[in-house]
């Protein structure tokens, strides 16, 4: 773990859990999905991040201060979630520290929940979900479960670092990416990601509530989306639209 980033544990952390990540990104898919998982599964805060790399910011809930980056969990799930957009300058040490911490707890797999932007998203009824994996074995496991693979392209943001770092440390990792709006909160895409998460891990939640409250979520998430958009532009997120040049 980086000296500049500490993960403070508040409760006993289970071993062999599945570690999930929901960070601000396109369509806020990861954050909306994570928030729904926390409320549906009654996950509680088990750890939080303390770091001088984070902006001078706390999140107040019920009058009490909280770190913007926290880990929620139960006996078999660890869910890292950020309530603020992470600056491109500090994203490496933050993601590396979370993954190192998860490895120290022997997390069996790391799964990032996120989106992939698509033009004319409003014309798509059912957004597709694509997956990428850290190794051929994990990729085969996903394909066997009938999930489409993102074969070629660019990935930018927290999930890109998670994937690269996990691959280098031989930690099984998956990124689930639902087709979504680039800069509008997308609860429907979050619901699709959660449906695919259920197929891969057996972590099932009812998404009907998420869909019913879709408009309210979009209204509430406006400001977080606006801040996230500023950070996405700094990290050149639109590169995910680019046509890749395959170098074998």
């Amino acid at each position, binding site marked *: 773990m980086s000296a500049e980033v500490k993960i403070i544990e508040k409760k006993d952390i289970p071993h062999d859990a599945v570690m999930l990540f929901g960070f601000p990104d396109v369509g806020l898919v990861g954050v909306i999905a994570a928030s729904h998982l926390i409320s549906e599964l009654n996950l509680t805060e088990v750890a939080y991040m303390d770091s001088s790399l984070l902006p001078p910011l706390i999140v107040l809930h019920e009058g009490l201060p909280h770190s913007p980056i926290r880990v929620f969990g139960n006996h078999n799930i660890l869910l890292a979630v950020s309530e603020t957009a992470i600056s491109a300058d500090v994203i490496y040490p933050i993601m590396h520290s979370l993954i190192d911490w998860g490895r120290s707890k022997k997390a069996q797999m790391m799964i990032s929940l996120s989106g992939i932007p698509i033009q004319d998203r409003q014309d798509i009824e059912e957004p597709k979900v694509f997956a990428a994996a850290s190794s051929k074995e994990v990729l085969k496991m996903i394909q066997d479960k009938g999930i489409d693979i993102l074969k070629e392209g660019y990935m930018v943001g927290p999930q890109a670092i998670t994937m690269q770092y996990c691959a280098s440390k031989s930690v099984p990792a998956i990124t689930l990416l639902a087709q979504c709006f680039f800069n509008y909160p997308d609860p429907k895409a979050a619901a699709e990601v959660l449906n695919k998460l259920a197929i891969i891990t057996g972590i099932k939640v009812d998404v009907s509530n998420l869909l019913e409250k*879709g408009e309210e979520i979009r*209204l509430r998430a*406006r400001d977080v989306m*606006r801040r996230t958009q500023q950070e996405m532009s700094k990290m050149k997120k639109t590169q995910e639209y680019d046509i890749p040049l395959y170098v074998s």
Partner: protein
Amino acid sequence: MSTRRRRSIFDVIDEYFENLEEWAERFREALIEKPSWNRRACTIEPLRNVMITPTEVIVTVDLPYTEENTIQVKPINNDTIEILAKLKQKVKLYDLGITHYKGEFQTFHCQTRIPVSVHMDRMEIRFKKGILEIHLPRKHEYEISVE
């Protein structure tokens, strides 16, 4: 023989300062942090995006919780449009978990600058799944042919 009137140096200077002022205003807007809502006007600013294609400019605006028949899109000059839309019901800051301010909103409001010349009078609008799409055909004032 050309009948075009020559512009005076004062016209040129005036135009230069007008452009400079407009640029400074945009720069200020981009840099100065401000809330995305206006308590006095009871409005909130929607998220929006501008895309330029070879034939048109497409502005999309995220308008969740909006009554479709209240949406208004008004050109306010050659390069700016104003968008207004009423929410289905008043939203209080308290409902969004904010208890240290009082305020309520019932209208989305924003102004968006169109970065290239367009035919404002041929604007087409559609609203689908809470996303407003404004299509503005581009105005190609002159073309340079390739020799």
